[in-house]
């Protein structure tokens, strides 16, 4: 499989009177042809900066980028016709109708204006096409943004938070659209916070945190390589479950009590559980890992899981050590 998009060692530094901030710190990403690729990261992690840099809106300080085999930004004008993109919130001139907005973009990009009704139909805006954009809801603007990205029938479609503002039906339609586009041979790069959606429709993902790639690969690979450190512990009937849990908690385990079992949330080395309990003549009847979903992996890798009693700030990454190592 060939790469449609390659980023290597991308750096972007913002300098201001308040100091220096590394928005991207040697970021890497590869998106293969025909895939729906999820691009995940917490707020302020560098997702939008990456997309803007890729699309020539921001100048990087260092690194290499290529789209469809062409180095960008140098050859961006040559490949721009094959890349449809929306970056962050949809931005259009409010006094024009959707139809005018798209026909002007078609003119500017040398695309046949006959494509306009087709893409408006595709995103469900056919009947509202002649209304001014400023009367649109956020979800409708989002649909228009997707329509503008699809107008030039791109080989690579880059969508930043396309489900933003969409109702549940719209989210499902968007998911189907992404899948259909991918099936037609289009490569889709999808940045989103809705991890359930990503897990449902993406073939592969890249997770970014603090300007660096922290995970990449197919969804199943990422889930497998970052298995949850949470284990379920069940004891023999009649054994003092509360006492056992207290024993482990004293040793540093993060215990969550359930009806007939408890879980240890930071069990990097589950053998410690059996050892500690066995020393007190307590024997476990079940010790099984709790399978992780993409949200767990995301929170673990990006260090953005909520911590009781603290208000995590944007850019703040919480180091999470395992117990029992």
């Amino acid at each position, binding site marked *: 499989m060939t790469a449609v998009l390659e980023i290597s060692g991308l750096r972007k530094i913002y300098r201001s009177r308040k100091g220096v901030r590394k928005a991207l710190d040697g970021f890497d990403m590869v998106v293969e042809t025909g895939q729906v690729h999820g691009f995940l990261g917490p707020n302020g992690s560098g997702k939008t900066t990456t997309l*803007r840099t890729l*699309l*020539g*809106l*921001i*100048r990087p300080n260092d690194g290499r980028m290529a789209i469809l085999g062409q180095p960008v*930004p140098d050859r*961006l*004008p040559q490949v*721009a016709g094959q890349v449809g*993109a929306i*970056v962050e919130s949809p*931005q*259009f*001139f*409010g*006094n*024009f109708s959707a139809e*005018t907005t798209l026909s*002007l*973009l078609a*003119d*500017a*990009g*040398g695309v046949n204006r006959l494509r306009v009704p087709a893409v408006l139909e595709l995103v469900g805006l056919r009947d509202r096409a002649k209304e001014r954009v400023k009367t649109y809801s956020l979800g409708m603007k989002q649909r228009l943004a997707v329509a*503008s990205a699809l107008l*030039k029938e791109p080989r690579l479609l880059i969508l930043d938070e396309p489900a933003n503002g969409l109702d549940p039906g719209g989210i499902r339609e968007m998911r189907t659209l992404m899948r259909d586009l991918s099936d037609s041979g289009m490569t889709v790069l999808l940045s989103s916070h809705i991890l359930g959606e990503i897990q449902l429709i993406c073939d592969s993902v890249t997770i970014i945190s603090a300007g660096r790639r922290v995970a990449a690969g197919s969804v199943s690979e990422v889930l497998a390589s970052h298995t949850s450190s949470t284990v379920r512990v069940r004891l023999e009937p009649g054994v003092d479950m509360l006492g056992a849990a207290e024993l482990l908690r004293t040793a540093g385990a993060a215990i969550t009590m359930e009806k007939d079992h408890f879980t240890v949330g930071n069990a990097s080395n589950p053998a410690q559980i059996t050892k500690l309990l066995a020393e007190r003549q307590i024997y476990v009847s079940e010790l099984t890992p709790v399978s992780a979903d993409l949200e767990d992996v995301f929170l673990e890798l990006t260090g953005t899981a909520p911590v009781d009693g603290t208000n995590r700030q944007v850019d703040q990454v919480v180091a999470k050590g395992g117990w029992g190592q």
Partner: protein
Amino acid sequence: MSLFRAETRRLTKRRFTKFSVLIALIVLGLIAGGTAYTHAKASAETRATAEAQAENEWKDQVRFAEEAQQECQKDPSKYGGNCADITPPSRDQISADQFMTPQFDFREDFPAMVIAWAALLALVAFVIGASFVGAEWNSGGMMNLLLWRPQRLQVLSTKLSALLTWLFGLSLVTGAAWTGLFWLIATLRGTTEKMTSGAWQSLGLTGLRGLGLVLVAGAIGFGVASIGRHTAAALGAAIGVIVVFQFGLAIVLELARARFYEAYLLPAWIGAWMAKSYEVVDYNAPCDFSATEGCQQPVFTITWQMAGSLFAAVSIIIVGAAMWTIRRRDIT
């Protein structure tokens, strides 16, 4: 070419453009209507009536002077003690023209109308130019456009070309209509005499300079709004220039008794550009006494070439700065 066509369409479709042009046309219409209303064609009858009114007025004035002379003889203190100063006007001092509605003399009066047209269109060009790019930056439309055409200099220069071409067309159409309208006014309510080829040539050159003023105003509005990424940047800069340079600077320079202080103010340069030259008199300089003409103050003449060079330089600097900033800045 497709980008140029798109930008021309975008400019024409904007409500602000349509609204501004409509306002300008209404103002131009009011000027033309007012001119037509306050002028009338002279005929033998109107002249005879005016002659009679002038004759009656002169007779009244003579009678008033005689009555005043008699009263003065009785009590000179009422008239400052000098009755010899009370004299009736001579007949030629009260002409028939004073009692006639003026004629619109195309050769004499139309050049001022060309200046009014150019000034109004320059104002409209400035705000349309500023809004055309400022609203695009502000709404995010420019970023969207750059995603389609990631060639920043080409996009901005094509936008500017579309604006200037459109302004050129607008100036040409309104200028021709303006000339035709006043030709009609002169024909119906004045005179079109003495319009020699030289007079037409001079008028044409004034019109061309007016066109230049419109294009320069449009380019400057566009450039400043692009640098500030907002329409308000250009409008704010324009207000700043008016307040600081036209009022503030004028007061400071006058208080400082600066030499030729008017030469530092924009209206003198616009006047020089449109009227071919503008004489700045240095009223703060000591008199140069002439035996025949009395006190002569030094005069500095601003020529249209000097004004043209200044406007061209300012336009190039501002548009150049807009190009430089779009090339370098991160678009966030």
